[in-house]
């Protein structure tokens, strides 16, 4: 019961934080260097690991579906399966999990240490709202970078699947067949759904991580505790939101 109240309290203050940050949207243009810096930290530095991860997820997916679809003699549809599951599900979710672990933890650690060492207090006495200088550029950067990262990840997944199909002896599906099957059942709508999901996940992760970083209290030990809490909370939110957002998107005609 107490924990439920605490969770609701955190949700409320995260939303308040969002509200306070959005009030400064007008200052984004003059904070452009900060925004670019965050885009670099969030997007560019995550790129290698996103490509490698999704490449192998596509490959494994191809292997597994090759094994199971053999039974139906439906091997020529592996492309459809790999393509759709990467776009609609694995691409956005895997990129989000990566962002939670890599970027979310870094955000919480940085803001929590600023809080513990009174840098946030210093900003407040200097009448520089931390929401404007610290939260807003990060939110803007994730909005821009999340679809880009996800799209690149999805392409790598497709590509990994294609290579696996072509060069695995037991599957031996030519990549031309693979991509024809992939294209045949892929609608623009599927890509849009995937990107919308990614966008929601990324935004929620950054908001949660900023909030938990800024609400850190106590000494240096709390920084570690906050980071753990931020990553775990982000992962839970990703998986729970995944279900509801998917359900919601499927309802939209």
């Amino acid at each position, binding site marked *: 019961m107490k924990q439920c109240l605490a969770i609701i309290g955190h949700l409320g203050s995260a939303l308040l934080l969002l509200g306070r940050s959005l009030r400064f949207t007008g200052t984004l243009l003059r904070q452009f260097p900060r925004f670019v810096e965050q885009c670099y930290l969030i997007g560019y530095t995550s790129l290698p690991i996103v490509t490698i991860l999704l490449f192998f997820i596509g490959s494994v997916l191809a292997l597994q579906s090759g094994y199971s679809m053999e039974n139906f003699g439906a091997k020529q549809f592996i492309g459809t399966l790999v393509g759709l599951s990467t776009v609609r599900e694995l691409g956005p979710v895997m990129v989000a999990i990566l962002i939670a672990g890599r970027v979310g933890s870094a955000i919480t650690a940085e803001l929590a*240490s*600023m809080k513990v*060492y009174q*840098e946030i*207090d210093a900003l407040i*006495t*200097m*009448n*520089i709202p931390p929401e404007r200088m610290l939260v807003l550029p990060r939110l803007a950067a994730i909005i821009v970078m999340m679809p880009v990262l996800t799209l690149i990840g999805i392409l790598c997944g497709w590509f990994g699947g294609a290579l696996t199909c072509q060069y695995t002896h037991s599957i031996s599906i030519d990549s031309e067949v693979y991509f024809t099957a992939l294209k045949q059942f892929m609608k623009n709508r599927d890509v849009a759904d995937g990107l919308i999901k990614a966008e929601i996940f990324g935004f929620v992760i950054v908001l949660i991580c900023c909030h938990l970083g800024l609400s850190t209290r106590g000494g240096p030990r709390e920084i570690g505790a906050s980071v753990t809490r931020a990553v775990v909370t982000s992962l839970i939110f990703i998986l729970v939101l995944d279900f509801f957002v998917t359900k919601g998107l499927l309802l939209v005609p």
Partner: protein
Amino acid sequence: MSANFTASPFVGKTFGVTVEHLCKSYGESAVLHDVSFEVRPGEIYAIMGPSGSGKSVLLKQIAGLETPTSGSARIGNFDAADPATRNQVRLALVFQAGALFNSLSVYDNLALYPREHRLCDEAGIRDRVMHALHILSLEKSAGKLPAELSGGMKKRVAIARALVMEPQLLLYDEPTSELDPVMSATLSEIIATLREQTAVTSIVVTHDSNLALSIADRISILMDGRLRATGKAAEFKNHSDPVIANFLNPVIDLQNPRFKQLEQSHE
């Protein structure tokens, strides 16, 4: 936001500070009990007291970083706890531990305030920052990161950062605690000169009785969260209260050491 402030250096009103029946507790533990005092505009006011007596907590209430449990702190006619007050009063707080921005160089630490509030162009900012660094003999450290500085240098950067803000109310939390004697004397001179030039109100929390007695107009002694005495600096040179006299001028007595007295009082 910044429009309320004049961009030209050292101009503007100053504000007095009124603390009335202020109490502050964290959960069960009460730190400040019914503290009241008044700092007049343009005054240098020293708050002294043993460590742990609640001096930093008191400054946090005045700076509006925390809200008092009861009672109030006011800056001029504005409630210190109200965030809107910061748009009316330019306040600088020199934190006890410096609170420098660890990801920014010393120069950028100082330049942050004028940049964020767009007080002047980069050349003007450079002048201001270099001037502040010069006063505290820090020019050579301008490009360094806070992690590369000693404790005393961090403290000086924190003071320089406050000077760049050209504040109307300056709060120092133990500004000389990590400085060498010459730098402490320099700082006393800076605080006094600044007041002459800009009439800024300064509240100095300090253990340094030399600083307090030589530049403060008035002094308050805070002990265990209560004000024990308030008065003109001259009154404290030979104070009648033995506890205060002992605090301001602790004579080292090897015949009858203090820790022995404490041991006996426990038996």
